[in-house]
C-alpha cells in the first residue's frame, strides 16, 4: 500500500512507538497491541476509577487535571472496618479503555474509548460524562469535531465510543503548519492526543511534549 500522504500507516505506527517509549519511562500505561493476523495494530491504555455513589472522588485539582485514582493508592487509604464496608458499598470501580487506531480512509488517527464496571456492565455515554467533569464537556462543545457516537471497533468488532475523525486534519493543520514553519519535529500522536484526549477524560502529562521536542 502507498504512503504518499503526510500521515500514512507506517508513520502512524512510528509515532505511536515513540509515544509508547515515553509512556514506559513515566509509567503512563500505554502499550501497543498487534491484531491477531499481524497486519496492523493499535495503541491502548486502561485505567481504573473509583466512583463514590454518583460523585467521582477527585484527587484534588492537580496541574494536569488528574481525575483517576491508581488502584494501589485507592486501597491504601486508612479506613477502619465500618468505613471500609460503607466505602465498598458506596463505591464502584470503573474500567476505562482508550484505543488509538489508524483510519486509512481519512489517513488520521482515531480515538476509541469505552468504560465498564468490573463485572462487564458497560457505561452509557451519559454515565461516562458524569465521571469526566464539566470542564471537559465544554471543550467538546467548543471543538471542531463532530459528536461522539457509538461504533464498532474495526479490529475487535465490539461497541466503542468514537470521536469522529473526519475533521482531524482540519484540527491538526495549524499544529502541523506551525511545526514546519519553525522547523521543529513534532510527534503527531502526542499533539493530537493532547487535544482530543482531555475531551474524553484522558489528560496527557506535560512530559510527553518535552520528550517529543527532545527527539532527533
Amino acid at each position, binding site marked *: *500500500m502507498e504512503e504518499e500522504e503526510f500521515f500514512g500507516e507506517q508513520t502512524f505506527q512510528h509515532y505511536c512507538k515513540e509515544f509508547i517509549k515515553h509512556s514506559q519511562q513515566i509509567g503512563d500505561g500505554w502499550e501497543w497491541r498487534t491484531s491477531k493476523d499481524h497486519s496492523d495494530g493499535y495503541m491502548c491504555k486502561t485505567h481504573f476509577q473509583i466512583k463514590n455513589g454518583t460523585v467521582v472522588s477527585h484527587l484534588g485539582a492537580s496541574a494536569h487535571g488528574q481525575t483517576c485514582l491508581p488502584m494501589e493508592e485507592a486501597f491504601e487509604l486508612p479506613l477502619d472496618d465500618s468505613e471500609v464496608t460503607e466505602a465498598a458499598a458506596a463505591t464502584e470501580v470503573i474500567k476505562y479503555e482508550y484505543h488509538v487506531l489508524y483510519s*486509512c480512509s481519512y489517513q488520521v488517527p482515531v480515538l476509541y474509548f469505552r468504560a465498564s464496571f468490573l463485572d*462487564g456492565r458497560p457505561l452509557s455515554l451519559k454515565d461516562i460524562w458524569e465521571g469526566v467533569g464539566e470542564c471537559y464537556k465544554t471543550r467538546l462543545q467548543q471543538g471542531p469535531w463532530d459528536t461522539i457516537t457509538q461504533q464498532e471497533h474495526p479490529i*475487535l*468488532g465490539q461497541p466503542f465510543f468514537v470521536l469522529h475523525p*473526519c475533521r482531524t486534519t482540519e484540527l491538526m493543520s495549524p499544529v502541523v503548519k506551525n511545526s514546519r514553519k519553525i522547523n521543529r519535529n513534532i510527534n503527531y500522536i502526542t499533539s493530537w492526543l493532547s487535544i482530543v484526549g482531555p475531551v474524553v477524560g484522558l489528560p496527557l502529562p506535560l512530559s510527553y511534549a518535552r520528550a517529543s521536542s527532545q527527539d532527533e
Partner: protein
Amino acid sequence: MTDDKDVLRDVWFGRIPTCFTLYQDEITEREAEPYYLLLPRVSYLTLVTDKVKKHFQKVMRQEDISEIWFEYEGTPLKWHYPIGLLFDLLASSSALPWNITVHFKGFPEKDLLHCPSKDAIEAHFMSCVKEADALKHKSQVINEMQKKDHKQLWMGLHNDRFDQFWAINRKLMEYPAEENGFRYIPFRIYQTTTERPFIQKLFRPVATDGQLHTLGDLLKEVCPSAVVPEDEEKQNQVLIHGIEPMLETPLQWLSEHLSYPDNFLHISIIPQPTD
C-alpha cells in the same frame, strides 16, 4: 444485451424472504405467530422492521419490552450491517426463508451497537457514505453537495425510492475525465472465521501501467487465503449481493454498479457449500 443501468435496479430491488419468530423465553400474553417479510438487501434491519416490532408487541405487556434485537442461530445480528451482507455471510448456505429470532430483553451490550432511533441509522448511513467519498474523491464530491442532497440520499433509501436516491448518488459515482476511476475503492471484506470484523485497506482501481485492477487482484493483495491457484479445488465463495462475480471483473465496474447505497462494496467470503 442488458444495460449496465439494469444492474443498478436489480441490486436495489433485491429481497430476502424472512421469517421472524419471537424468542421462546420472551413473556407473552398469548401465543406469538411468526411474521413473514421480504427484506430489502440494501437496507438495515432496524429501518425495515417496524411491522415486526408491532406484531410481537401486540401480544406482550409494556413492562416486558426493552430494546429489540435480532439473532440468527445464536449470533446477534448487527443492525448497522446491510441486510444482504448479513444474509450472505451467515445464512446463504441454508434453505430459505431466513429464520430470524426476535428478542425484547437481554440486549447483548458487548456485541451490538444500540439503535435508539431512526436518526441513529441515518447518522450511521451518512457516515459510511462520507467515508466512501473520502476514499473515492478525497471528500470533494460529498462536501460540495448541499444538506438537502444528503437528505435525499437518506430519504431515497428510507422510502425505497430508486430514482430519488440515484439522482444524487450518480454524482458520487463520477470521476475526472483524465482518470480511469476513483482514487481508492471503498470496500470491506467479511469472513466469519476471523476475529477481525472486516478487512479494509487502501486499494487503487487502476494499476500504474493503466490496467484496471480486478476483483481477483484485490483478493490476492488483501485476502490471499481466499484465492487459490486455478488447478486447486475452490475452498471459498466470494459473494456480493448473493452472487459470485467473476474474479476477472474490473473492480472499478464493481464499485460503480454493485456497491450498496452506502457506496461500499461489502464482500462476503464463505466456505464453499457442500451439496
